């Protein structure tokens, strides 16, 4: 008889809020009431907790049991509150030490036999617990590796409710149970292929290195078989490793999306390549009760590759405009508003027309002019406006293939070293600035402190006067030029860098 307290975490997007679980057992007709905006899965905790407590040699309280999850107005979802509810109840009955239960955060779903089941999103929950000032967390054995990724947190792995109760001072005998484990994480990252595999397309190889060094979005336009997909798939391989904060965010999103996290933080940038039938909810995330991350959030700090971009639903493509601008995806639903990090690098690939042969030498395009226009018109102007590099990828000719055999090849390792060097130069130059990559440089800076060598912008100015380039396009060329300068190791972009930067936007005109 009395009130027991425990703590758990409710997730909203990647942000966790601390939830206090109060359990009151009082005299009265037997009843089990759970209040505090539970969803269906959480409401069913009643059945799980009752069985788990019964199967752990405890008597379920005979009177009226009330569980309150506070703050009451915050919607709570999922089964990860089970352990906290069970222990708050045992604390209310005096079967475990109430002070010990109140002092740690409990996460995990209970099985009917009292064993702990692994849950989704344990990593961001443990992060939230750490931010809320807790230093100890009880997690299911199946999530222990994931929880241990949070530095400075004491993680207690429990295989069953019995283990947890014993840890909190219950007088029970230890009983070895087989812990429930999640599906094992793949040992190695999937093989992405080496940049050396790309034959003949020197421009494209250069373009991916520029994209990687400056964080520029990229649009590859070319006929089928030109190697667009091959080139795009090699971009993650030449990006630098993630820093600790980014790695934690990437792993947190994986945890939330139900992808195995493994024993160590993700160090390589993720690659997400959704199919072109994806809806806008699949791209940005959504769901009515639980708000889940979409492909764009899973691609945060990595690459979002949209192959056959014009085949995507226009609403799906345009839903990317806001995250491209702000680096954050905000999803609003009736119950709550969740936000996910979404600073990804966008890579679009498209054929020039539905049949794919427009502009190809020795091949005939069978599309009507109208069909051709409409095809690329599906990529909206505002979206393409945000893409810095727009490159034509032609089919490789026999002559290029012969020449490529003699020319030196660029391997992914060499390219990554070059990218790292360029990024180091960028970082040194932008030490005091709020942005870290050339792609994020604001236009005012590009035209004042960041202006290229005087007199080198003549070709650019001409393009602007002709109307071949908008003012925004002008800024984009300058950003690419800065990345080229960093790759070349020069202090400030000159005539050469601007010329090459213009070339990397030629598909736009």
């Amino acid at each position: 008889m009395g009130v027991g307290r425990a703590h758990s975490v409710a997730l909203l997007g990647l942000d966790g809020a601390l939830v206090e679980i109060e359990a009151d057992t009082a005299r009265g007709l037997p009843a089990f009431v759970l209040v505090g905006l539970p969803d269906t899965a959480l409401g069913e905790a009643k059945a799980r907790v009752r069985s788990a407590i019964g199967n752990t040699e405890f008597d379920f309280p005979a009177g009226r049991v009330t569980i309150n999850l506070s703050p009451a107005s915050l919607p709570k979802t999922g089964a990860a509150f089970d352990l906290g509810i069970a222990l708050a109840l045992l604390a209310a009955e005096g079967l475990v030490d109430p002070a010990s239960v109140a002092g740690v955060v409990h996460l995990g779903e209970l099985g009917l036999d009292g064993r702990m089941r692994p849950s989704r999103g344990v990593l961001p929950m443990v992060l939230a617990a750490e931010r809320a000032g807790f230093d100890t967390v009880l997690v299911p054995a199946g999530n222990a590796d994931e929880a241990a990724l949070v530095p400075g947190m004491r993680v207690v792995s429990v295989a069953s409710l019995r283990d947890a109760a014993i840890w909190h001072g219950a007088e029970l005998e230890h009983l070895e149970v087989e812990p429930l484990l999640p599906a094992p994480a793949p040992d190695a990252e999937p093989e992405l292929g080496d940049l050396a595999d790309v034959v003949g397309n020197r421009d494209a190889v250069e373009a991916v290195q520029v994209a990687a060094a400056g964080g520029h979005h990229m649009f590859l336009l070319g006929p089928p078989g030109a190697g667009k997909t091959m080139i795009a798939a090699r971009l993650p391989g030449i990006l630098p490793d993630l820093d600790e904060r980014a790695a934690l965010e990437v792993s947190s999103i994986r945890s939330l999306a139900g992808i195995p996290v493994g024993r160590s933080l993700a160090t390589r940038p993720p690659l997400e390549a959704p199919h072109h039938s994806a809806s806008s909810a699949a791209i940005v995330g959504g769901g009515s009760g639980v708000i889940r991350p979409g492909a764009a959030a899973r691609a945060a700090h990595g690459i979002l590759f949209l192959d056959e971009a014009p085949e995507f639903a226009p609403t799906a493509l345009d839903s990317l405009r806001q995250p491209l601008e702000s680096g954050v995806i905000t999803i609003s639903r009736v119950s709550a508003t969740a936000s996910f990090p979404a600073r990804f690098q966008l890579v679009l690939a498209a054929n020039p027309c539905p049949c794919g042969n427009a502009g190809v030498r020795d091949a005939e395009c069978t599309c009507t002019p109208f069909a051709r226009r409409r095809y690329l018109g599906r990529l909206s102007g505002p979206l393409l406006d945000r893409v810095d590099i727009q490159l034509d990828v032609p089919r490789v000719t026999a002559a290029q293939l012969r020449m490529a055999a003699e020319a030196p090849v660029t391997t992914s390792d060499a390219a990554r070293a070059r990218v790292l060097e360029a990024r180091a130069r960028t970082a040194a130059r932008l030490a005091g600035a709020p942005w870290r990559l050339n792609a994020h440089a604001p236009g005012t800076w590009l035209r004042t402190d960041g202006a290229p060598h005087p007199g080198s912008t003549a070709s650019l100015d001409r393009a602007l006067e002709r109307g071949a380039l908008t003012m925004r396009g002008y800024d984009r060329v300058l950003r690419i030029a800065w990345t080229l300068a960093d790759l070349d190791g020069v202090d400030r972009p000159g005539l050469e860098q601007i010329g090459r930067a213009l070339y990397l936007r030629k598909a736009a005109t």
Partner: protein
Amino acid sequence: MAAKDELGRRGERLAEQYLEARGYRLIERNWRCRHGEIDLVMRGGDVIAFVEVKTRTSTAFGHPLEAITPVKLARMRRLAGLWREAHPDERGRIRIDAVAVLAPRDHAPSIDHLVGVF
């Protein structure tokens, strides 16, 4: 008489003794009408308590109180009204109580009295 009815009678007697020992006075036992039965009607001060008694020999099929469902409580409430109609002279506030009698075969019974369960 079947064994379960025997047990029920015994439980009701035990409950009655238990309540009388605590200052309640019996007004009526097993009052019936065509809507059902009230196990005990007791008076304690200015309160008339309508008591539902549940007896079990073990908790193997749950605690006796778990057998008192919302439907049964609603019926008690209705019966209490009918009883008042039939006994216009009895005055006082009405209250619905539940008594659980756990009477194992070879142990002393344990009795649990819940006040005002509806």
